[in-house]
């Protein structure tokens, strides 16, 4: 019997071996609609970002023959996705190409104007929007103009619809793991207990989004945790929460449910913490939760810079938080960003020295990406920001940090971090 189901392909380029949680949510939400589940076939196609080969992806597409393609767009994969979209459009001109994700959402109209291969760009969270788009394209339901949360091209014109209010009750999005959309695997399983972030760090795309925090129910998180921790082959997994130690009450609840489910000594790795808030109670909860390693700032150790980019930073509290976690046996990874406004070469040297003094398990250096939608992107002029408008949006200079200093700070910090990181346990 011929298969008349409409085929949807969801494409992402990730770190090798990792699945896209975002596409897992989108697929799980779409399949929750009975007609969509009956009438469509949704496939998630994940490529390694390092080796992702556009022609290989294209070949897969010609084999799968999709009727609709969605791309999950991040700063690291955008160039590849645009190349792929241009090629797909040549050989499948009638297949709608939809882009979503933090790289395109805040610049939806610009992306449509500059990249004719794209048909629709989703402004923000994709679950409900994508379901409406499936209904529109396959069942002819409604009009594109009425789908909030997208921009689209009509007769060479870019039309921008109103933004969509994000889903309040996150439990309406079925769990990709509990529904079998994604399979939990060792080291690359990502859970989430809430969306949003209470902080507004200038370089972070979370800071440009909704301030409101939205939570999955504890029952839902508990069920996912039970599934993941019930599998003895999973030695460690992650939470993608913006701040795992959001507040003692939330952390305490998570710690308790994680501890109860932990039959095989499974660990939580590289979760993000707000270190200034880490006290003895927090550490007890982190240990109870099975946390083995955390990733944290300071991004810079210069108080003036932290203030300029809207971050709270207290060097003493930060050091104390790191020490408490280390004393409890938790590996602390410290991140530093080169190119922040307020910093300069010797201030970066100071930040590296401060961070080394904390004795973290690892120092991670990155160059500032001035990401669309972030406060630094929005207020670029105020900070004298020069940056590449195309992804990965690397900073070029700012009002305190000329390019030659940024260039040398990257060389210095990378060398210093490598010297530090070769430490043996």
């Amino acid at each position, binding site marked *: 019997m011929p298969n008349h189901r409409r085929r949807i392909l969801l494409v992402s380029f990730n770190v090798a071996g990792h699945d896209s949680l975002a596409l897992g949510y989108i697929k799980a939400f779409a399949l929750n609609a009975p007609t969509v589940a009956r009438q469509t076939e949704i496939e998630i196609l994940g490529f390694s970002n390092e080796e992702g080969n556009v022609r290989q992806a294209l070949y897969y597409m010609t084999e799968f023959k999709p009727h609709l393609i969605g791309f999950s767009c991040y700063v690291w994969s955008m160039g590849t996705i645009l190349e792929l979209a241009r090629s797909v459009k040549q050989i499948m001109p009638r297949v709608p190409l939809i882009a979503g994700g933090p790289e395109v959402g805040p610049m939806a109209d610009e992306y449509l104007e500059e990249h004719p291969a794209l048909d629709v760009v989703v402004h923000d969270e994709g679950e409900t929007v994508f379901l409406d788009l499936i209904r529109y394209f396959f069942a002819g339901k409604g009009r594109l103009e009425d789908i909030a949360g997208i921009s689209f091209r009509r007769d060479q014109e870019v039309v921008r619809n109103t933004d969509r209010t994000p889903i309040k009750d996150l439990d309406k999005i079925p769990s990709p793991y509990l529904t079998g959309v994604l399979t939990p695997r060792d080291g690359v399983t990502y859970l989430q207990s809430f969306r949003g972030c209470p902080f507004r760090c200038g370089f972070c795309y979370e800071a440009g989004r909704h301030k409101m925090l939205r939570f999955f129910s504890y029952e839902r998180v508990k069920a996912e945790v039970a599934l993941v921790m019930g599998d003895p082959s999973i030695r460690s997994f992650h939470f993608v929460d913006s701040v795992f130690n959001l507040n003692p009450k939330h952390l305490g609840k998570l710690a308790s449910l994680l501890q109860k489910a932990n039959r095989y000594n499974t660990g939580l790795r590289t979760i993000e913490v707000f270190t200034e808030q880490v006290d003895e109670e927090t550490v007890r909860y982190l240990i109870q939760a099975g946390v083995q390693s955390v990733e944290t700032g300071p991004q810079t150790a210069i108080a003036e810079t932290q203030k300029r980019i809207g971050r709270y930073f207290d060097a003493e509290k930060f050091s104390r938080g790191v020490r408490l976690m280390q004393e409890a046996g938790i590996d602390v990874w410290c991140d530093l960003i080169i190119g922040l406004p307020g910093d300069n070469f010797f201030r970066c040297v100071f930040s590296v020295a401060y961070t080394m003094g904390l004795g973290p398990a690892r120092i991670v250096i990155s160059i500032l990406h001035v990401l669309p939608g972030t406060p630094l992107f929005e207020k670029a002029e105020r900070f004298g920001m020069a940056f590449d408008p195309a992804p990965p949006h690397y900073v070029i200079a700012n009002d305190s940090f000329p390019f030659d200093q940024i260039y040398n700070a990257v060389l210095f910090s990378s060398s210093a971090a490598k010297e530090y990181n*070769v430490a*043996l346990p």
Partner: protein
Amino acid sequence: MIAYQKLCLGPEGNNDCAMCSVKNEQKTCTLTELIHQVNALADPENLELCGGESTLHKDLLSLISSARGRGAKRIKLVTMGRRLADWDLLTELIDEGCRLFEVRIHGSRPETHEAITGDHGSFDQTVQGLQNLSTLSNSAEYEGAIYVAARVGVTRANLEDLVPTIALLASLGVDRIILARTASDLPTTKAARAVENAMRVAALNRIWSVCEGFPPCLMKGSEMHVAELLRPVLSETQKPKGCRGCTYIDLCNGPPEDVIAQGGLREFRAVSSSPYVEDVRRLLTMRSLHAEP
């Protein structure tokens, strides 16, 4: 950047370097003595093993193993690199826990390097040692797990060869280059310009480089690469008159002693202001930059 505790293994060397400061009357430490020294350290996390020629010490592997057992996480070997040409020895050192190397090389050609080491054949062995380190660093097993710095002694003999030396080191994938003023017969300003140029070439090749022994007044425009400014200490050295009013006066040890002795002070002129000095001073508060006594 990391503050290392130094352990001098002994004076034994396999070169005859013109500028060597290690006295032959110093005696080679025994393994027991060296272990005592490690045990006496409050924090043995970062150790630097130097000589003479560290790789000639007969108990080097045992020392590394003992130091690891006593909590050393970073063991840096300072060496002429000749014995690293021996692949088996090198892999043994690495497997025992020595992951950082500071290799001394003084030129891009045997003529310049050996003019300083005074030993024919030493250049090829040092380069082979660096090549072996590069091969291992790029192997899947040790990717990101070996750190190699190259120390180039700047002398009159290799001034013209500094840029080719940087090019050679770039091809060998080193992680840092140190250009250290070593000889007293050096034409100061000419050497500073040659070093500055070499550091520029290193940056173009995306390699971090620093200079040592060149006061900031000689390195205007290259202050970011002056090692003494990256890890400043308050200096109490008496300075000649020309240094008066210099913004770096308490952060700089003044003109090198040999230059003072030769009366060549005209090249050192007080720096009236610098956009960097305030942030350099901030580094004085960073205790992590210096090894605890």
